[in-house]
């Protein structure tokens, strides 16, 4: 979009926020039990214990909150990754971070017989962090350091590797398979608020940290040489940004399981709307990511009504064609 046609970024952000709130509200209203707008309001202000109020407070509201924050975290993590690696295809799902979390949870369940979602969350966190470190090391080994292509292929390879081990574990134990298969598809259903509150601090630190570092991230996205030329200590900035990615994607996976493609697609849309400055791209990504995951979750509930599809499947079906289009566009004839 040429600059003169672009509305001011702040206005766009406000529109995005309104959209986010509207989607969140719709997500609360939509479901098998009819709930009206006044019900929602009263449930929050004067809770009277009626079934409608109970559902709003314990099921619908947590679900909408989780979807919005998980979406925001994944999108911001993806945006930072794309800036950090200067790779349009970078995202937690592509680079193996989700697969690492999945393997870690399945291994915990298989070896330690862990069963509660809050225990899963910690292992997901550890797994995501380990995979992020591994893919970074693998992608930047050797002469020439990290190139976008090396990183993407290393990520795809790591994903294959981790998920085939996951599959092997699942084959060996039917009980694990039965309990894990829903988590593995990625979902925001049936999460209670306490689980969410456990990871909320990590997400909050991640999101606020990302916004605080937006300027440095913009500089870094111009390339390491440029950033260094502008006097940036790139090593520290990169390490801090990578830590933010681990915090954000780790906590997102911990709550919702491996939800893919939000982190890939949203930053591109955000860049299309907000330009090249990460001080705008990051908040745009957060708002759009939350909106997109809310919509995907509504879609997941609507498509096979009254049954639910895991939201991770919805995002993959929406996001993978996006990935293919990017791959077609971004890679020249070699």
């Amino acid at each position, binding site marked *: 979009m040429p600059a003169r046609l672009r509305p001011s970024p702040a206005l766009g952000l406000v529109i995005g926020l309104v959209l986010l709130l509207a989607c969140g509200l719709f997500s609360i209203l939509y479901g098998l039990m009819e709930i009206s707008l006044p019900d929602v309001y009263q449930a929050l202000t004067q809770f009277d214990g009626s079934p409608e109020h109970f559902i709003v407070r314990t099921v619908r509201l947590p679900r909408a909150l989780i979807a919005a924050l998980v979406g925001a975290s994944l999108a911001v993590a993806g945006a930072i990754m794309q800036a950090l690696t200067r790779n349009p*295809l970078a995202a937690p*799902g*592509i680079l193996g971070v989700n697969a690492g979390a999945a393997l870690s949870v399945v291994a915990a369940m298989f070896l330690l017989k862990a069963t509660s979602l809050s225990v899963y969350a910690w292992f997901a966190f550890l797994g995501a962090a380990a995979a992020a470190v591994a893919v970074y090391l*693998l992608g930047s*080994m*050797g*002469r*020439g350091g990290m190139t976008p*292509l090396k990183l*993407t*292929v*290393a990520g*795809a*390879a790591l994903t*294959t*590797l981790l998920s*085939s*081990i996951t*599959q*092997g574990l*699942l*084959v*060996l134990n*039917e009980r694990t*398979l*039965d309990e894990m*298969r*829903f988590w*593995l*598809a990625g979902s925001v259903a049936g999460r209670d608020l306490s689980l969410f509150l456990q990871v909320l601090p990590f997400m909050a630190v991640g999101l606020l940290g990302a916004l605080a570092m937006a300027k440095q991230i913009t500089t870094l996205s111009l390339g390491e040489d440029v950033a260094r030329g502008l006097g940036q200590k790139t090593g520290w900035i990169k390490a801090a940004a990578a830590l933010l990615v681990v915090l954000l994607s780790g906590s997102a996976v911990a709550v919702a399981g491996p939800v*893919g*493609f939000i982190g890939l697609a949203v930053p591109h849309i955000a860049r299309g709307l907000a330009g090249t400055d990460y001080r705008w791209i990051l908040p745009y990504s957060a708002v759009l990511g939350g909106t997109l995951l809310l919509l995907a979750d509504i879609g997941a509930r609507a498509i096979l009504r009254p*049954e639910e*599809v*895991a939201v*991770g*499947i919805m995002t*993959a*079906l929406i*996001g*993978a*064609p996006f*990935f*293919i289009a990017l*791959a*077609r566009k971004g*890679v*020249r*004839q*070699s």
Partner: protein
Amino acid sequence: MRRMRTAIVLLLLTLATLLVITINMGMGEYPIPPLDVLKAVLGLGTGEYDFIVNTLRLPRNLVAFGVGAGLALSGAILQGLTRNPLAAPDVIGITHGANLAAVIVIILLPAAPLVALPAAAFAGALLAAAVTYLLAWKGGSAPMRLILVGMGIAAVVHALTTMLLTHGKVLVVNQAMIWMTGSIYGRSWEHLYRMLPWLLLFVPVALLLARHLNALQLGDDLARGLGAHVERYRLLLLLTSVALAGAAVATAGSVSFVGLMAPHIGRRLVGPTQGGLLPTAALTGGLILVTADMLGRTLFAPIEVPAGVITAAVGAPFFLWLLYQNRNS
């Protein structure tokens, strides 16, 4: 000199494979001395072991060898085509296509005849490859685009597979998971006969195309300069690779990492020239899978671990080593 070396390597691999197959046929719940195994296979025995050896264990080993060889050859061709050492049928979506088709049959059509499963898997592999090729086409088929688009296709197909897995009954889902991991359990002559025509057709085709693969490996421009019809041979080679992987996966499920490992081991043994590499990789792949099947049968006996779990367990560290080796490319 190189030819001599290749011949020796091929001979040694063949001997090693025969040795492992013989040992594998002797092992199990009902152990049989190796000499009696050979006698039974050759029809010289007392008839005591004929059923176990010739009806149960021999076809299983031959299937394992054929599947391993098919996957390895497919991987070797893909790696040459894409000029990428990490390409393999299970990285760029071919096996994902087979998985989805097989899971559809297992979960949604439990009443389908037994033949439907391999047929569907084969069709799925072919379809995934066709879609990848078409979507990667943009005035030509750049290898890198093939890999990236293949990864995207793999993701979509994987999402659909996961959807089916979360909605099926756990017993059927477990069956589907075992299929997706890859196993040679209970494979019989019938399975072998169904796979054999594909191998007999496409293995020679692959070997005949080795020369063109050499040219393509130099890069499109150089290959064109040498007079190669780049696009035509790339399509033909891709088709061969998919047919081999499809036949293998249809027979045993998607055994992972064989298509990735075998070509690299082959390259270590005989060097990068495709004429020697392709047969070496094929034999290596066969040997790997026969060995994996033997380990899976015996390591935790009486529990049988699917061969695919063994190849994944061995393939994982190999893979990391491979990434390390290729750090400068």
